[in-house]
């Protein structure tokens, strides 16, 4: 590791307000949305209050209170907006899955399973918050993290536990539970990348020769991370998980850009992305199909039924939606998972879905804010990387469902049915809140966090 130069400490101390009371108030308000969605669904469909209203309220608000208490205990300075926002999204997702459960006869119980996954996600969130006092502990073992991430990614290819669904070999099945290890691998690899980039950022930025205006790092600096990145990307492409590969590509781009501060990297990545897009369009079968379904879905009604039905749903819902339980989200295939944004748009309206997009934007903004005020570079890299991937995922899936982009099979964070994604996202929130807590802790005010960079004089290139 390069040597840090301790910035001069001034006499002043920055103290952020804890705002835990605000968090609790916001949290209760946020939880009411999902809960009310469930109650209104029952009222609209069956004309009476749900019989389990007491126990469900106890469990749901109990979960929120527990999460809040854990945060109050271990992360008193964490951002007070993040937890309520996530609970709002998670609650709306649960309510919508419950609503779609009611369509078949007899109703399904996927929402109960999803609620259990939510509880498990909260347990893991609490575990992260309690065990990980300081996120900087994560930066010690980039290579070890990388190896474990890669192993997780490779698990679905192991005969016996791996299985294939929807054309992608990304699932493992243990004890009857299906799980996508890529979701967790994504986090581990993000930490590994952040650690590596943080350690090597100066040499990556400065050492090496210039080529076409781009400062090319030395192979010995860029090599290891390039190998790590290409290996993980290769596995995902091989497993036909293009959505996650896209997120990974974005993660890598943002981290190398933030670490080196060289705008050439995102430009290069953009060119590579466009090139890869064209190649995929030319040389694969399903990419042109997806693109056609995006640009001209009505040219093949039967094949593009899913995306067309989602559009019909938006139109039918209109600005204010049909109301919980009063739309026809069941007409769209995969309404609970990939297409949950369409189901929400139909029942709580285009304005409702816009509000959800704003909630995601708020969440990402808080993540970026944590990155901005974080005093350490590793925390910055990790927070901005995770936030960006989160934003990219929201953009890709909601953009796909609303025909802004070709559809990619990604989950809608905190809303789609599926445990792996839910758990992984709760862990991400845990990490973000730890970073945010460290950033907002009282600390001696410094001049702009100076870095060793400033002390280094470039003699020659």
């Amino acid at each position, binding site marked *: 590791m390069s040597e840090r130069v301790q910035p001069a400490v001034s006499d002043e101390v920055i103290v952020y307000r804890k705002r835990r009371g605000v968090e609790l108030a916001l949290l209760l308000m946020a939880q009411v949305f999902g809960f009310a969605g469930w109650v209104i669904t029952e009222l609209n469909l069956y004309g009476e209050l749900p019989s389990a209203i007491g126990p469900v309220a106890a469990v749901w608000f109990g979960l929120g209170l527990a999460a809040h208490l854990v945060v109050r205990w271990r992360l008193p300075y964490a951002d007070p907006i993040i937890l309520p926002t996530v609970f709002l999204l998670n609650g709306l997702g649960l309510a919508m899955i419950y609503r779609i459960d009611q369509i078949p006869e007899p109703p399904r119980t996927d929402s109960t399973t999803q609620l259990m996954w939510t509880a498990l996600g909260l347990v893991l969130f609490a575990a992260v918050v309690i065990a990980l006092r300081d996120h900087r502990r994560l930066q010690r073992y980039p290579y070890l993290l990388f190896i474990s991430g890669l192993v997780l990614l490779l698990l679905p290819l192991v005969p016996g536990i791996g299985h294939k669904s929807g054309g992608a070999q990304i699932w493992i099945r243990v004890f009857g539970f299906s799980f996508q290890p890529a979701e967790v691998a994504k986090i581990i690899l993000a930490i590994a990348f952040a650690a590596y980039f943080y350690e090597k950022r100066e040499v990556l930025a400065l050492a090496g020769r210039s080529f076409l205006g781009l400062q090319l790092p030395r192979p010995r600096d860029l090599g290891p991370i390039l190998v790590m990145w290409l290996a993980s990307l290769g596995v995902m492409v091989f497993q036909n998980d293009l959505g996650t590969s896209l997120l990974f590509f974005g993660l890598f781009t*943002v981290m190398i*850009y*933030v*670490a080196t*501060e060289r*705008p050439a990297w995102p430009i290069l990545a953009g060119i590579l992305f466009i090139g890869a897009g064209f190649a995929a369009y030319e040389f694969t079968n399903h990419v042109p199909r997806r693109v056609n379904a995006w640009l001209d879905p009505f040219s093949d*009604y039967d094949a593009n039924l899913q995306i*067309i039905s989602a*559009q*019909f*749903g*938006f*139109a*039918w819902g*209109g*600005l204010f939606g049909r109301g919980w339980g009063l*739309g*026809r989200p069941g*007409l769209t295939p995969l309404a609970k998972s990939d297409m949950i944004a369409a189901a929400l*748009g139909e029942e709580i309206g*285009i304005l409702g*879905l*816009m509000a959800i*997009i*704003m909630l*995601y*934007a708020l969440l*990402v*903004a808080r993540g*970026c804010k944590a*990155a*901005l005020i974080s005093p350490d*570079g590793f925390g*910055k*890299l990790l927070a*901005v990387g995770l*936030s*960006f991937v989160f*934003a*990219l995922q*929201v*953009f890709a899936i*909601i*953009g796909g469902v*609303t*025909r*802004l982009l070709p559809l990619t099979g990604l989950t809608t964070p905190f809303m789609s049915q599926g445990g792996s994604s839910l758990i992984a996202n709760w862990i991400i929130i845990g990490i973000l809140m730890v970073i945010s807590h460290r950033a907002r802790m009282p600390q001696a005010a410094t001049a702009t966090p100076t870095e060793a960079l400033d002390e280094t004089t470039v003699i020659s290139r």
Partner: protein
Amino acid sequence: MNGPIRKVTVFIAVLMAALLANMTVISVVRADSLNADGRNRRVRDAEFSQNRGAILVGTEPIAESEPRKGRFPYVRTYPEGETWSSVTGWYSYDYARSGLEQSFNAELAGTSSEQSFERVLDLLAGRRSQGANISTTLNPAAQRAAVRALGSKRGAAIAMDYTTGEILALVSTPTFDPNRLSTVDLAAQREAWDELLNADDEPLKNRGTREVYPPGSTFKLVTAAAALEDGLVPDSMVDSPNSLALPNSSHSMGNSTNCGGTRVTLEQALMTSCNTAFGNLGLALGAEKLRAQAEAFGFNQDQTIDIAAAASRFPTELDRSQAALSAIGQYDVAASPLQMLQVAAAIANDGAMMRPYIVSAVTNRDLTVLSSTAPKKLGQPVSPSTAKLLQQMMVSVVEGGTGRPAQTSGVVVGGKTGTAQSAPDRPPYAWFVGYAEDPQVAIVAFVENADIDRDDISGGRLAAPIFKAVLEALR
């Protein structure tokens, strides 16, 4: 590192703004066409579940929505569906709508702009919206008589009060049972549709308004009108050779009836439906005058009636021999029974052509009137004096000419027969179009598959009794 983080944040903001902008596009630009798309099951299901208004004849419904249990809370039923199918049309889940169900869909469903106030009230009161009722001008006795008289023949009959334009009967046969297409049993609906659509006698066609056929000799009314307007009188003499050589053509025109001489009066020519006499008139008048007269009666224009109607055709760019053929309703002339009814009605109404209509009023369930129809004059295709002369000639046709089978005791009846042939290998069409003075009604009867000789007397013999049956039902 904060500089790049800020730039990444701005990039994320752009992505989110793009999502929001796209949602706006969906709402503002795409939503209307998506909701209008016939494949949008959400819209169809909701429409099919509506409590539609009734279509009324007098106070009796001929189409109404009945409450039921299940996926669709209402089912559309048609009492006496076979009798009224040509007017009501059908209302189905998978196969859209037709007839009044189609043209008054918004009012029946309660979604027209005039009903927006009621919709708001229903919304505030938590009521399920109801559509408006439609009152028609139809006469049950005339309608039933027309159905009975047409029987198993393929054809059409329409009766209209020529002083107002109120349609009293409108039948196209074979009829069908619209209940089979409006059933909530979607499999049975599909089966019925396939059967009706593929049936040889094409029951889903509306032969009265939406199909055009060669009008044959009934078109001689238009030629006679043009001749009278051009200065001739019923007693004017016209050459009526046994065979008329057509100019610039190797063909000649023959007569299918005995004209009563080689030079007859115009009135005599109409009574005997003399082809060569009218061929000569066509040559003398020329294509332009014929077309102007036909268009004054409504040819080459969209027909305005409350259900979908086809435009009748008088060709442009005719040479002289084609003009002669057109003058007797052959060559490319094609008319719907509704169009020929309009010709007779305008003559009967002293030259004033009224707008035909079926719907007299649209009323809300609380009996407030949303809209009502007043008689409207469409035009004056012939002068009153010409109309009077034509009336006199039409009466002669029935009293002593080819139209004798239409004679009805105690009523002054005028009319014109027609037999038209579209292709040598298919049976000719039989026509009768006429009017009565009391009741003041014009009636057209048309048979598509007339299994008869190819002369006008035969056409009259087949179609005129249908005319007479409807007329007697109206007395």
